């Protein structure tokens, strides 16, 4: 039951990411920002002091989320392979 729930959750996440990339992301204009983001000002606004957290849970939150999905897919892949043995 838990394994099936886990597979369904991963499948929903993958389909959502695929739909997002194919429909919405294709029209996004990529712009190179030359200005430096003031992370200290962001940290003050969010009332936190760890600048690493400011970056990877702030402007880079989607990178963090995709990293998390990679780890989940690794676990799912191992579970899938072991299930086929």
């Amino acid at each position, binding site marked *: 039951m838990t394994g099936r729930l886990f597979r369904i959750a991963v499948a929903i996440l993958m389909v959502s990411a695929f739909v997002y990339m194919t429909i919405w992301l294709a029209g996004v204009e990529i712009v190179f920002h030359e200005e430096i983001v003031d992370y200290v000002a962001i940290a003050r606004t969010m009332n936190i002091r760890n600048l690493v957290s400011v970056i990877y849970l702030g402007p880079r939150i989607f990178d963090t989320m995709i990293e998390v999905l990679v780890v*989940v897919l*690794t676990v799912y892949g191992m579970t899938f392979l072991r299930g086929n043995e």
Partner: protein
Amino acid sequence: MIDPGNSQIVQTSVRKLFPFAVIFSIYVFSYGANLPGGGFQAGVVFGTIVVVFELSFGRRIGSHAAYQIIEFVGIVILVGCMIWGYLDSGYFFGGLYRHTTETLLFSSVYYWFLNLAIYLEVLASMVLIFRGFIEWRDDR
């Protein structure tokens, strides 16, 4: 060669170290927004001490299903924060950063939840991945 599974020294050391490592991991993720650390590092600390314990004693702490549920809860919190931010401001993960308090622990409520989500996800993944490698049987 010393077999760690039968070493009284290793087993005693790991048994004494285990609760401190667990508390330290909770501390690292709880104060991740204001002190060095964060959810990922804390999850690695917890996952590593569980793996070391299992290698030393030759028995599992928690079932596969339990860790899969923990991992699932972490993902649900992460996706929930994303949707919560969208409903609040119209942007994924947006608009929630303004929820702040004066305390050091919850100086930014949103960051605490994000760290919690990553902590749960990473600790469960660490254990599941290591178990997968350790228990792998290649019959080729």
